[in-house]
């Protein structure tokens, strides 16, 4: 059993309400933090080694310390709740069932950063969640945790919920700020970074929901204690949203010491693959991270067990590894078609490209069209190399990481499953009626025969 820091109270009846949440020890971190100086709070977060939970994994404390603090200019904290990376649905769980945990984290973080007006930018499709959050905010306000002169410390803070309207790109922090300003979600060209010039040209920090919620346990147990959970630079706990071909899809909190194998097969987590099917591949950190075939997923190239953490999942680089990313864990069993899966992701990125810069705008659509041809048996062998070349020319050459996010899944699919792409080209009729299957990716696990 992993230690739980975020979801430990998730099953308490009525935890969504203020009274229950407070009774269970909620808002203690605010009491503690407001007795410290803002810099001490930031220091505690630095000590904790907390890394951004939105996907990039940048150290949160460090990000906070970059915030410019010019005299007389308001600063803002913006919570990134625009969760839209395919495979990721952890923030939704937090906001829906533990709204006060997020609000508590936001108050502490706002104090540390000096943000008197803090915004939660939530994706528009989560249309029922703003009400839950606004209720929590109102309750917190009524109980003196928000508003003017909080706990008599002279610290004022308001939190507002701002809804998006359907755009994955607004998860990119500068696109999010553009959207918050009421504009099209076109990412900005950096520098300047938001820490210097963010929303309305004011210094701004943008953090993911889970990151901000994690501030609560960090304040409660202390940064040093937080580091002890986990290994190396993967400190604390991480929410993993597991989906695809598994028996128990859902959101799990793990400490980052468990193995990928345990995560997929143990009953505590995903509970194995349904119908006695075998594991073919997995996208371990949200759709934009490289897909890994079973043999590389469970063990690193050195033959060690791969663990569910930042370092271990990226062990072997992009050639032989992947990334923890946002924790969107997508499992594919032997019946899944990698070409088709890659096509849906290519379509996703084409649909979500903002259209601002040329490689992404033109390249994503081109890749989708080629993949559609291959998927429907109209592809050519040369298409595979062409795809490779297109993704190579998008990667690193765009304004924002969406270009990379669109390129990586395609690169990884070709890298590890080239034979499956070729089979589609060579068997244009057969590929319409059946899938390629497991291929030569030997599943290292014995499969229990279904009863």
């Amino acid at each position: 059993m992993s230690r739980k820091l975020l979801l430990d109270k998730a099953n308490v009846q009525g935890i969504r309400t203020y009274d229950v949440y407070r009774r269970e020890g909620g808002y203690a971190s605010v009491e503690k933090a407001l007795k410290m100086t803002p810099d001490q709070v930031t220091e505690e977060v630095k000590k904790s080694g907390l890394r951004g939970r939105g996907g990039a994994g940048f150290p949160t404390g460090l990000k906070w310390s970059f915030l410019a603090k010019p005299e007389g200019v308001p600063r803002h904290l913006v919570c990134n709740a625009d969760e839209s990376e395919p495979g990721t649905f952890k923030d939704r769980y937090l906001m829906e069932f533990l709204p006060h945990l997020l609000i508590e984290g936001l108050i502490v973080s706002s104090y540390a950063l000096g943000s008197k007006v803090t915004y939660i930018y939530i994706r528009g499709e989560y249309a029922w969640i703003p009400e839950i959050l606004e209720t929590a905010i109102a309750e917190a306000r009524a109980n003196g945790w928000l508003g003017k002169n909080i706990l008599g410390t002279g610290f004022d803070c308001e939190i507002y919920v701002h809804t998006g309207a359907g755009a994955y790109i607004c998860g990119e922090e500068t696109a999010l700020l553009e959207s918050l300003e009421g504009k099209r979600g076109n990412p900005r060209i950096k520098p300047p970074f938001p820490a210097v010039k963010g929303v309305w040209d004011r210094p701004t920090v943008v953090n993911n929901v889970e990151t901000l919620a994690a501030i609560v346990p960090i304040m409660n147990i202390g940064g040093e204690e937080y580091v002890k959970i986990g290994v190396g630079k993967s400190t604390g706990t991480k929410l993993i949203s597991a989906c695809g071909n598994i028996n128990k899809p859902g959101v799990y909190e793990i400490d980052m010491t468990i193995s990928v194998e345990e995560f997929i097969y143990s009953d505590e987590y995903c509970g194995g693959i349904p119908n006695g099917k075998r594991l073919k591949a997995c996208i371990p950190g949200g759709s934009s991270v490289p897909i890994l075939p079973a043999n590389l997923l469970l063990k690193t190239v050195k033959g060690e067990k791969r663990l569910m953490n930042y370092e271990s999942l990226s062990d072997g680089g992009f050639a032989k590894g992947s990334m923890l990313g946002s924790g969107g864990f997508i499992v594919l069993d032997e019946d899944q078609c990698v070409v088709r899966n890659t096509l849906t992701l290519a379509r996703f990125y084409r649909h979500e490209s903002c259209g601002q810069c040329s490689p992404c705008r033109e390249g994503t659509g081109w890749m989708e069209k080629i993949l559609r041809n291959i998927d429907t048996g109209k592809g050519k062998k040369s298409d595979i190399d062409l795809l490779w070349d297109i993704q190579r020319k998008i990667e690193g050459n765009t304004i924002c990481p969406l270009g990379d996010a669109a390129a990586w899944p395609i690169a990884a699919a070709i890298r590890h499953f080239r034979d499956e792409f070729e089979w589609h080209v060579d068997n244009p009729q057969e590929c319409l009626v059946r899938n390629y299957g497991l291929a030569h990716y030997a599943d290292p696990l014995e499969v229990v025969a279904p009863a």
Partner: protein
Amino acid sequence: MIKFSEEKLKKVGEIITRYPEGKQKSAIIPVLHMAQDEFGGWLSAESMDYVATLLQLEPIEVYEVATFYSMFNLKPVGRYVFEVCQTGPCMVRGCDDIIDYIKKKLNIAVGETTPDGLFTLKTVECLGACGYAPMMQLGKYFRENLTPEKVDSIIEECRQKAATNN
């Protein structure tokens, strides 16, 4: 001439106060959501112009934003819009079959509305419910772990609601 009710106008005013003075443009997306809900489930040029007036913006600024975000309908839609997710994780769990089933059941193609104006079928990209796939958004809420039987009951539920509300 379209117009928000007094109550809604008060809400618009409240939303504007969430942002610094002179930055009322920030209210554009929340107010467009309100306009879409209020004026027939889609945004006509008239609705968008109205929002522009409310927020003291040039109409083009509103058009630019409204056309960028996928949740805004720029053409009339049916009373109930089935927005079925079709991205990878949902595909893995069989969303294609659900889409086909809805198509057959309602006898419309993706993007079309039934002749009675009740249902529109749309395919959308990842809605963040990958663990509960296949799924769709219906109005404010998600309908998850869809099966043909569930789709049947949702359609029935909508028909009944429409019948009682008319």
